[in-house]
């Protein structure tokens, strides 16, 4: 009798399991089907081209298609144009990204404090976002031309004119342009993050006599770390995209200091140098992945306790 009951329960459970399995299988299968179009889209437009690019980076040319393994990479690292572009892009990012993060954070902190004309300042820093790039470039050309407004001002005070766009100063011009264009958006992100920091923690710190700097580094920065990471990655990506402004300002072949890696990629496409183009794209991808991985690791370490 007991045996029968046990057997009945077992068969019921088995049946239930089988039904669940069938249901799960059906659900999973339909899930895969629902995902398939998106996955195929990603595959066709991202995954497959990525592998094709790797393939192209290891052949001599799309015409000969002889396998050369790493020769294109070796050639790339001995190419003056690539090294110049990569170095300039790196220098630009190393200078512009921290500046963009730190300055926007400082502005956000400033606007968080009780200061007069707060909303006007906020609008002021956000206004560059509304200006089209072409107009921005036009303004910059007027400002930094050899006989532009900046040089006129310098000359008025008895200084020497500076050839802003055709000298080593050119990168400063673009860094200023980059900051002017990006600070506002970063600032908004920081302001949002600041408003999410628990007030009770800050009030407790006040009660316990913590000063503003201590509160900033021990509480606010901990809570800001995910936003800090996000803003840094965003600024990094934007720093790679500054090519657009530089191209509009100076064309295909700017002064050496402004020659970015995207100039290299853009120009060698026209010369049918698809293999080196592919190799450069692979190198750029690896560099981006490494930088972002490092940022994630740092954020993981720094903001771990807050997230927990």
């Amino acid at each position, binding site marked *: 009798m007991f045996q029968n009951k046990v057997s009945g329960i077992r068969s019921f459970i088995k049946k239930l399991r089988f039904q669940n399995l069938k249901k799960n299988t059906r659900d*999973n*299968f339909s899930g895969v089907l629902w995902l398939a179009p998106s996955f195929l889209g990603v595959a066709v437009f991202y*995954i497959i081209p990525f592998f094709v690019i790797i393939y192209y980076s290891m052949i*001599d*040319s799309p015409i000969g298609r002889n396998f050369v393994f790493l020769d294109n990479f070796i050639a790339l690292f001995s190419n003056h144009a690539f090294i110049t572009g990569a170095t300039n892009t790196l220098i630009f990012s190393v200078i512009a990204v921290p500046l963009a993060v730190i300055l926007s954070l400082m502005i956000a902190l400033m606007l968080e404090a009780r200061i007069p004309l707060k909303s006007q300042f906020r609008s002021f820093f956000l206004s560059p976002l509304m200006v089209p790039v072409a107009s921005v470039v036009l303004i910059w050309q007027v400002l930094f031309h*050899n006989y532009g407004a900046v040089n006129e001002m310098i000359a008025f005070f008895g200084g020497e004119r500076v050839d802003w766009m055709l000298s080593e100063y050119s990168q400063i011009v673009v860094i200023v342009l980059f900051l002017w264009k990006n600070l506002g958006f970063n600032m908004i992100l920081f302001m949002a993050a600041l408003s999410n920091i628990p007030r009770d923690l800050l009030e407790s710190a006040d009660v316990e006599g913590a000063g503003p700097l201590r509160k900033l580094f021990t509480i606010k920065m901990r809570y800001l770390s995910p936003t800090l990471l996000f803003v840094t990655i965003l600024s990094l990506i934007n720093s790679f995209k500054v090519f657009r402004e530089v191209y509009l300002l100076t064309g295909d072949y700017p002064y050496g200091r402004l020659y970015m890696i995207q100039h290299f990629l853009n*120009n060698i496409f026209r*010369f*049918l140098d698809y293999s080196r183009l592919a190799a450069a794209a692979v190198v750029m991808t690896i560099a981006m992945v490494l930088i972002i991985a490092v940022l994630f690791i740092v954020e993981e370490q720094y903001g771990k306790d807050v997230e927990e």
Partner: protein
Amino acid sequence: MKKVLSAVILIIAVVLLIALMSGCRRNEENIFEPPEFVYLPEFIQFPQLPDGISHVDVSNSVMVGDSIIFMAFPEVDWSVPNFSAGKLFSMNIDGSNFRELPEYRVAQPPAGATGGSVSTSFICADSDGNIWVVETAEFYSLEGFDDFVIDPEQPWLVWDLPRTDFGVSTVVRKLSSDGAEIHVVDAAQLAPGAERFWVQSFAVDDDGMLYFIVDNVVIVLDSQGNRLFDLASPGWVDRLIKISGTDVAAIGNFEDSRAIRLIDVYSRNWGEELTVPPMAGTIMSGNDEFLYIFNNQSGVGGIDAQTRETVDILNWIDSGISLDGLGAVSFLPDGRIATVSQNWQTGGGVNIELVLLTKTPYAELPERTLLTLATFWMDWNVRNAVLEFNRRSTTHRIQVIEYSQFNTDEDWSAGMTRLSTEIIAGRVPDILDVSNLPATQYIARGLLEDLYPFIDADSEIGRDTLMEGALQASEINGGLYSIFTGFGVFTIVGSPMVLGEAPGWTVDEFRAVLAANPNADMPMGRFLTKASFLEMSVVLNTNEYIDWANGTVNFDNESFIGLLEVANTFPDEIDFGNEDMFMDIEEGLIPTGRQIMEFAGVSSFNDVIRFNTMFGGDIVFKGFPTENRDGNVLFTQTALAITTQSRDKDGAWSFLRTFLTDDWQRANVQTGFPMSRVVFDELAQHAMNPHVHNGNDGAVPIAPRARGGIIVDGRGDMQDFEPLTQADIDQVIALIDSASGSTGQTRDEALWNIIIEAASEFFAGRITSHDAARIIQDRAAIYVSEQS
């Protein structure tokens, strides 16, 4: 579940792998996509013109049934008063029944007229097969002409007699098929009160309504000649055509773009506007299938009446027809296409052929190996060579793809982009016309074949039968990657008394010559500016400043800085408004020492003769100033290459070699030194011969002064040119042998922009020459490095 998931993932992986492999496979499909049909020609020779007829105008002809109607012009001695009237001829399209329309009568001269002409300017046909012509008559009388005796030595004196003009009259005649007048319309109403007016265009529609363009206005009359309405143009109107073979439309520029506007006779206003493709040349009437047709670069295109899409109808090279002397194209009722070819013969006379093209499936063409030839702009010589090759060869046929046809109004580099993309995708032609293409980059990418092995293996052509100096100058890394039909050498030429005996000079030596000749305020003539001096000294001589193989540039040196400073002594621009600048040329720039040298593209012996004359009989080719005193630069014409991906390189060579044969070079190289050593020697011998005057009494040598011509120092005076000596010929050969590199037909626009942008800042005084050189070095280094 895991199994199902694994299966799905496996399927996706396989799909991805296949896609991946298909992306990476070597694409060997032919670049040429055969058309479904080609039009094969049948040539109908026009009979000999009857006596008294000087020529016919078959470009202004019309098809009526099975006949072509066209105008003919009588032989008239215009040196004395005479009457002349056009005639109408017809010929069946099979070449039979060539005759003058017997009943056609033009306007008769009024009483007392001494001379005049009746010209028939337009021929149209209506749907009933009637012919319509526009006739303009103009007569005059010379007082006392009847008693005047014309002196055969001075016949023109007759024109001194007092003249009375009878005015100009224009009529439109409707004629039957044998030329008999059915109806006549006085066209004076088209421009009431005007003494003279010009009918720009004329058309007749199926209802017999008459359309004219007079003074940029479309005027429509009914078949009886009553004026119905006028249409003013918002831009300008050029010509009238029939659309779809029925409605009449005007071609013109409406609101800043070329277009066709239908004329709506019901609303008496402009009707629908049809856009015109950017590459459309002459626009012609279509038929039921096509709204209209047009000449494009390579053949005839049309606008499909149903889809309104632009379609290629025929390609002249596919049809084996030369473009030279082709007239308008029209459809016959049976679907064939008719045109007329009219070519002047070398020995005199005109060869006229009616060409009937029959639509034939491409698959029915005789089977031959296809060779594709990609070009950007088709060279006239290459086009004719392709036609000749296709006619002659029983094994190969060349198909030409002209990439400029893919350019659009918005993107004039679309053709170039398409060619680059196709090459990257592995769709590589067999033969590339690299005259207007970046050959250096193609060579660096392994796209072009070294042609020396083909030359060395050829039974007739060898390096020793060609101008070896030119070959060597165009070598890249020891290889010859294109053959060219002709060549020349860029140099600076002048008198050795002034410039020094030895060829070649450095920038410092160049400046020293300028300093030693303070009177030379226009040292290289009056047409050189700062920019043009710099352009010719640097862009045509890039090898001096750029090492393409190693990707390095050499602009930040004293030599280039010196060159910038020399360039800065030239004027900013030529002051064409300054008459003094041109008035004092009466003295001559060179004899007075104001000009001491000339930039020269030496490409014929006549150039050398001319420079000898300009500089007093003795010249030296100094070349551009360079560090190594080797600034003579080769330039080439029509460079053709075989691609490494060609599947039939020997077949491609069998075409290319044509251009290097003595016969081809002798017949076709007109504007450069020939590549054939034999032909070069023949031309040299000819240049050393005294001029021979072929008078009535036979050939008379005129020695030693010979060869009349116009000297190019601005005066336009006739000068006597001396024949060359053997020493002159040797000097030319030395010039060719000294050429240090080769430049294509097009300058490197990107490089030039880099140079001139910084140089302009220096010329404007905003930066120093050192700064300009530094900036150019910086930017050019990147440009060159990208391509190394």
